[in-house]
């Protein structure tokens, strides 16, 4: 579904991504891991068009999307959540997800229909499956950090993507909240058949949910494969697992 080949990106002479390669097959959960500063978030930003690659290729569903505008990539069926909370701070929880659903249906340039009557069921269904139904009329800035992280993913789901990118979905969360996210990821993958690409620091989570793992080290893909192969890979142990104990 997604192919990344020999991707390169530098910032002011610093080579953030020097040779990233990634294959995400349809229907699987793939995790990108690597130490801090390995370039995981940069890789995500390149894939979703928030950054422009210097060279290399990104193909989504067989078509080149390298350096395309983020909104166009979203239209093709890719949505993402962000590592830091990135929501519409003055809107209610309901409107946060509804805005995304409206954009998905390409009604964002419609002037004369009352917005509050649009896609109510579709929005509520998403809120419900994320356990946010009871907060729907609240201002999203009144939510707890954990709930905001969940809302972060719910907004992405509003785009009805085929490929969902999660950038550190559990960063800063308690173990209980993390479990909620894990269940959510499993639900989305198994019941909704979503293809998921995620980055994560929590190794337990990665080995729990991921069917494939890609290891990024200093901007370079050093290994890619099944979880057990990654666990036994010498170069990965040296570069990464050894470092963090």
């Amino acid at each position, binding site marked *: 579904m997604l192919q990344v080949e020999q991707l390169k990106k530098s910032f002011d002479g610093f080579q953030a991504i020097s040779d990233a390669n990634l294959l995400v097959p349809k229907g699987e959960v793939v995790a990108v891991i690597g130490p801090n500063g390995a370039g995981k978030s940069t890789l995500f930003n390149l894939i*979703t068009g*928030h950054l422009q690659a210097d060279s290399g290729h990104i193909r989504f569903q067989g078509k080149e999307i390298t350096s395309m*505008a*983020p*909104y166009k990539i*979203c*239209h093709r069926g890719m*949505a*993402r959540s*962000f590592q830091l909370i*990135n*929501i*519409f*701070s*003055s*809107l209610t929880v309901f*409107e946060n997800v*509804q*805005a*995304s659903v*409206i*954009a*998905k249906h*390409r*009604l*964002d*340039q*419609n*002037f*004369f*229909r*009352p*917005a*509050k009557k*649009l896609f109510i069921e579709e929005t509520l269904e998403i809120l419900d499956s994320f356990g946010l139904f009871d907060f729907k009329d609240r*201002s999203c800035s009144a939510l707890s950090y954990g709930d905001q992280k969940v809302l972060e993913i719910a*907004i*992405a789901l*509003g*785009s009805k993507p085929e490929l969902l990118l999660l950038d550190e979905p559990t960063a800063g969360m308690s173990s209980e909240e993390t479990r909620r996210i894990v269940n959510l990821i499993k639900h989305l993958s198994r019941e909704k058949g979503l293809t998921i690409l995620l980055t994560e620091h929590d190794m337990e989570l990665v080995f729990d949910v991921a069917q494939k793992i890609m290891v990024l080290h200093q901007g370079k893909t050093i290994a890619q494969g099944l979880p057990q192969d990654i666990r036994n890979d010498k170069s990965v142990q040296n570069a990464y697992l050894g470092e963090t104990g």
Partner: protein
Amino acid sequence: MSTNNLKLIENPKGKFNTYLGLGIAAVGIIVLLLAPGFLTQYYVYLLATVFTTALLATSLNLVLGYGGLLHLHHGVFFGVGAYTVAIVTTKTSWPFAVAVLLAPLVAALIALVIGWFCVRLRGLYFGMLTLALGQLVWAIVYRWNALTNGDNGIHAIPVPEFLTSINSVYYATLLILVISLIILYIITKSPFGLMLLATRDNPVRSESVGVNVKRHRLTAFVIAGFFAGIAGVLFVLVERSVAPSLLFWSESAEVLIMCLMGGLTVFMGPMLGAGILVLLSMVVGLYTEYWLLVLGLLLLLLVLFLPQGILGYLMEIYNKSQDKRGGN
């Protein structure tokens, strides 16, 4: 003021009861319909000026309050609208109605050109470019003697027979104001309006859920320009003359202050601000010629003590009292 400050402003909506709002609007309109019966001609004229300015301020707020864009020179589109009417009626033999219809379109076209450049920039840079390009339009109007009559302006603009009395002008401006406000209100409540708030809150996220943020902002900019053009038509109906000072940046600053004064967060806020400032400038004008000094002091007090604007502040109190009643 930076766009960061704008972001802190809560949503232009609230728990304010829709029916209560409609009720107040209905009473207000009835009072305004009857007003010429008990006001002197001068006050009728003054109210018509308030209507004109109110439409201008409300159109600016679509970009400023809802879009979160630091639009510093909205007066340009107002001036372009007014000049279009003036030029078409005095330099061509086209009917007056054509001039009136052309005015908002020309204003929107200029907004499209200026906006096309501005939406590529953010925050203060956006603001500076609106200012720079706006002043460019002012300079053209000021200098192009053959077309605009330069700094003399255009006076004694002919209007149709039925628009010669101040009372008929009053009703015409009121009617056009109400229709424009209804359309603007519907736009703020539309999917476009919701997404505009979303792009204000978080442009990066808006882009990732599939919104072309630049185009969205440009659309808002052009719509605001269109309605500023309509306000320009109203100005000509009321004053029957135009001058380059209409397009000068200080005019735009005053409109910006109206929005701030009434409150960017409430649809009716800029209208209240426009009413207060227009009437106040008249009253102050009776006593002193230092209106700008008074305006400056007002702005200072406003920014320090009432950053959410008068109507914004009242809505806050109202919402709090509703919360208490609801037992939250």
